[in-house]
């Protein structure tokens, strides 16, 4: 019974991690059809922002939840203005340019902070379920990811900006005729996606080693989650995170963490083969 509870918590935290990692990518890919291969580096920048400001004496919660998303969101807007906006509609070139960007950011961070692993202590403490120990921080991640999904839903569905941005993605010419500047909307959407990614980096910083090359570990996972989820941003991210998170954690429990990951990748390939448009195109048609 205790084991079941701990396993459930493990699965939930695996799903939460995937939701956090892929939500920003899903916004950028789902809304703008931009394949951002520098996604892992955005996570890494968020983690660095958290570690550096926490080490400078700022409260860890402010560092994670405020500084990390704001920093990476600002960087994202700069990148959109300087690089991405020249490449709209050129899918392959965007992939190449963002891959170059990912190398560039890795190199810049290595030059600035050195190729060392840094970290911050995990806040909150632990608790016990029978013979097993777990941490409150895991619960926090689960709650946070659910909250974020809810916030993004409300933002896209209930606010004027959400309406305008969804309209721009569907038909930029028509929204421009109605007095909206599509370029501005693209910039803001990219910034929001980057900020969400930075937030993920911030809250994952205490539970993973923070180094210049940490992004590489995340980018493939985030991509298979988004691609497996399909075009609906929220329903897709939530459903594919659940599927892959469940497979990852149970697979890791019965074999090793490495083979858990291998099983996830293999099942992702099978899933893309069976549902080339992603889960949401088959099961959640028309949802957000």
């Amino acid at each position, binding site marked *: 019974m205790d084991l079941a509870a701990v396993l459930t918590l493990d699965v939930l935290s695996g799903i939460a991690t995937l939701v956090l990692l892929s939500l920003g990518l899903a916004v950028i890919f789902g809304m703008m059809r931009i394949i951002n291969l520098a996604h892992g580096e955005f996570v890494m920048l968020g983690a660095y922002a958290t570690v550096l400001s926490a080490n400078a004496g700022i409260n860890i919660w402010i560092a994670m939840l405020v500084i990390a998303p704001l920093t990476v969101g600002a960087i994202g807007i700069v990148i959109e203005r300087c690089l991405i906006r020249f*490449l709209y509609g050129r*899918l392959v070139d965007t992939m190449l340019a963002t891959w*170059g960007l990912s*190398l560039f950011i890795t190199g810049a961070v290595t030059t600035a902070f050195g190729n060392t692993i840094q970290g911050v202590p995990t806040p909150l403490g632990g608790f016990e379920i029978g013979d097993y120990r777990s941490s409150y921080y895991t619960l926090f991640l689960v709650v946070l990811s659910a909250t974020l999904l809810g916030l993004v839903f409300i933002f896209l569905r209930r606010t004027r900006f959400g309406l305008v941005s969804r309209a721009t993605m569907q038909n930029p010419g028509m929204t421009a005729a109605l007095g909206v500047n599509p370029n501005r909307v693209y910039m803001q959407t990219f910034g929001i996606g980057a900020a969400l990614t930075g937030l993920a980096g911030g809250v994952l910083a205490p539970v993973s080693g923070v180094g210049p090359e940490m992004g590489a570990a995340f980018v493939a996972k985030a991509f298979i989650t988004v691609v497996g989820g399909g075009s609906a941003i929220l329903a897709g991210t939530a459903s594919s995170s659940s599927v892959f998170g469940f497979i990852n954690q149970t697979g890791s429990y019965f074999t090793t963490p490495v083979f858990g*990951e291998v099983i996830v990748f293999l099942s992702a390939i099978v899933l893309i083969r069976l549902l080339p448009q992603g889960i949401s195109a088959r099961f959640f048609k028309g949802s957000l």
Partner: protein
Amino acid sequence: MAVKTAAQLTALILAVVAIAAAPMLLDLFDLIELTLFASMAVLALSLGFIWGFGGILSFGQTAFFGLGGYAYAVAAINFGDSTPAILLAIALPAAFAALLGYFTFYGRVSDVYFSVITLTVTLILFNVVNSTAGDEYRIGDAALGGFNGMPAVPTFNMPFDPAAVLEPEASWYVAAGTLVAVYVLLRLLLASSFGRIAVAVKENEVRASLLGYDPRLIKLIVFVIGGAVAGLAGALYVNWGAFVNPTIFGLALSAQIIIWVTIGGLGTLIGPVVGCILVQYIVSRIGTQQTFNANLILGAVLIGFVLLLPRGLMPTLQHIATQAGSRLAYMFSRDNAGRAIADRPAGAE
């Protein structure tokens, strides 16, 4: 056309002469570095072929490169003779490419998702091979060694004569000779009717299938050839270092191959080779000084090329050369014509 063929033949002969003369002109250190560049250039050719002429953007060409390297290492340790090991290093990646290509092309997975899948596959292989530390992971006499890789892999020997191990000079001839041979074979393949169909599929899949060709099969064959060439490059690479570890499946190398092809020029065969040698030369020079990080420079170069020179070096140079040539020809013809007109009155009188 005849001029072009003659120029190509001349270039080929010059390349062969340069390769033959290199050991006499260079010291051993440079020759060994060039051997590495030539092996990697074979890898660049494999992506240049499938991406530039088959329209298949594989982010995981390292999967085949690494499989080739590991297949060679395991077979060479077990057999003690490099001849069957090299053949295996070609056959195994080709078979793997056939399997992966069957899944994806026949599943009609779209281009972008194909790139993501190939990236995932090479990461899977990286993770799996990385975790094979310990004595339980051995194939015959060869321990896979996990993250540390496999040291002391036997290098190439004369075919079927394990005692006659090749010297560094001979390894250079093998690597550079393979590069030229692969280049010529791919060129001939592209000139054949199959090559023309492959390019047609790349240009317009629907039109090619309406003309009665099966794009899935054509892409599969192109992909398998690319996998075989990448596997051969892997064997050459392991021969160069007598060593193999999981980083040959890694993201860093996958990114580099893409950079080679993008910089050199997509849609040419010579471009990827030039891009590969240029980038490797730059990286090895950056490695000797500590001011700038290699990733920083490579990233900036890739972004710069995508934004400013998306066609790559070789096509741009060719374009400039053609422009200059036609301008010269134009000036020459106008000059002649002018003189002819000027001469006429004098001759008429």
